[in-house]
């Protein structure tokens, strides 16, 4: 998986959790919370959907890695690639 594919996976999850958000122009290097209306409940759901849909575990100490789309991709892509 490439980082771009990983960003797409994360955006798909956010689209499902927050269907009322416009995700057409999410900037990868700006915090998701600054661009979108996501609260801690939504971030918990992103983590749990990653586990449910893709078997990816994100320990609570790493939640900070999910701050922006870019940091999500940097953190998650190796995890996806390690799955196989």
């Amino acid at each position: 998986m490439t980082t771009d594919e990983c960003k797409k996976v994360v955006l798909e999850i956010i689209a499902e959790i927050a269907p009322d958000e416009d995700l057409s122009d999410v900037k990868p290097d700006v915090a998701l919370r600054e661009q979108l209306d996501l609260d801690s409940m939504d971030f918990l759901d992103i983590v749990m959907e990653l586990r449910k849909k893709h078997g990816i575990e994100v320990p609570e100490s790493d939640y900070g890695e999910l701050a922006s789309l870019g940091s999500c991709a940097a953190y998650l892509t190796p995890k996806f690639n390690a799955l196989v």
Partner: protein
Amino acid sequence: MEHYEVAIIGAGMSGLAAGIRLAHFGKKVCIFERHYAPGGLNSFYSKDGRKFDVGLHAMTNFVKPGVKGTPLGKILRQLRISREELDLSEQKRSRIAFTDANLSFSNDFSLLESEVARVFPKEVGGFRKLSDEISSYPDAKLDEAYVSARSVVRNWISDPLLEDMIFCPLMYYGSATEDDMDFSQFVVMFRSIFLEGFARPLDGIRKMIRLLLDRYRSAGGIRRMRTGISRIETEGNRVSRLVLDSGEEVEADVVLSSAGLSETFRLIDSELDRDYASKEGQLSFTETISIFDKQPSEFGWGDDAIVFFNHGTKFEYQRSADPVDLRSGVICIPNNFDYGDRTLAEGVVRVTCLANYDQWTQYEEDQYIEAKEEWNDRIWKSAVQFMPKSGLNYDSDRVAWDMFTPKTVERYTWHARGAIYGSPSKLKDGKTAYSNLFLCGTDQGYLGIIGSMLSGIAMANQHVLRG
């Protein structure tokens, strides 16, 4: 013995919401409900082929699509329900009606502000400061101590009539405490009713329950109806098993109970009952439902969706001394929501009043039926004084009526003393003395329909999904 990761007691709003969260994230979860119908305190039934709603007058917390960070948006996201599916219609307007003053309000807060300026010109500055304070007040924390809302509101409002008029709707829609409420609860209710507002699906509570059941089922949740829990067995500080009414036993790693505080502890040990009896709610209600073959607009009642009324100037929100406290109440006219080109088939007028549990439960069966007829008429006569004069003849224009009492509430929801808002003492973090038993719903402390769903979501997230 059947084993579940999570057992939920009660298929009301909080139990269903918790169940959806847990089932969605793969937990083996079962909801046990003693009644044959889901919904708990917000439910529905049929009588003579006609559908009646109980509980919900309107969904509170209405905000227009696109308004961010509000409770309605949170629960829809958490439950994966879209606004389109829920299909809410906004109220036309509502009113707080005291003998000497009326304040109209709608989902546009500026109407209430202008009404306060019209009726209480000296108070409007204080009212604005109060609403600013409430807008910016931090979200309620789970560990906050009780603070008297009356004492806080008096910092800004000096006219006792305006104070009572502000409190009346907020108490009727969610206070388990007589004559006062917790300030954090006041903030939640003020926002949900005045700053946000009322809306309703055309089909009322049935629409909401159907959506919740669909979500729960499609996520893989199990539901056992007509299956009450008669005992919670414990070992040390843990719940080990649940004993069903049939005698069957099931195991669960975690139990979420929406049964209520004293009601849940009674299931553990009837001896504990005495300790918790003092915590039982004292406030119960009655509601009459009158059905007409005309739309309320045809008898000149075409705007007000909800009318909170009070005879006289002093509003007393207390356990009723009489079977029904006729001094105040809430009129709900479900027809007066903006459904576009759709309408309800019949005119519906519901009136809710405070009622006395002990009196309603001491009647013999035929006395009970007589008392319902007598009080239904008296409630109507009390309420109608706050509505425009009309040519309506209550006896001949009415095609059906029904009434629920504290006895009905207890019979179908098993909430002690028919206290719909539960115990005055709440367990805000949901934790009990047992490490795997948590409360959700009414006695966890988020009240109202949105609050109850938020309670189920929050307790499932905190104690199971994160825990």
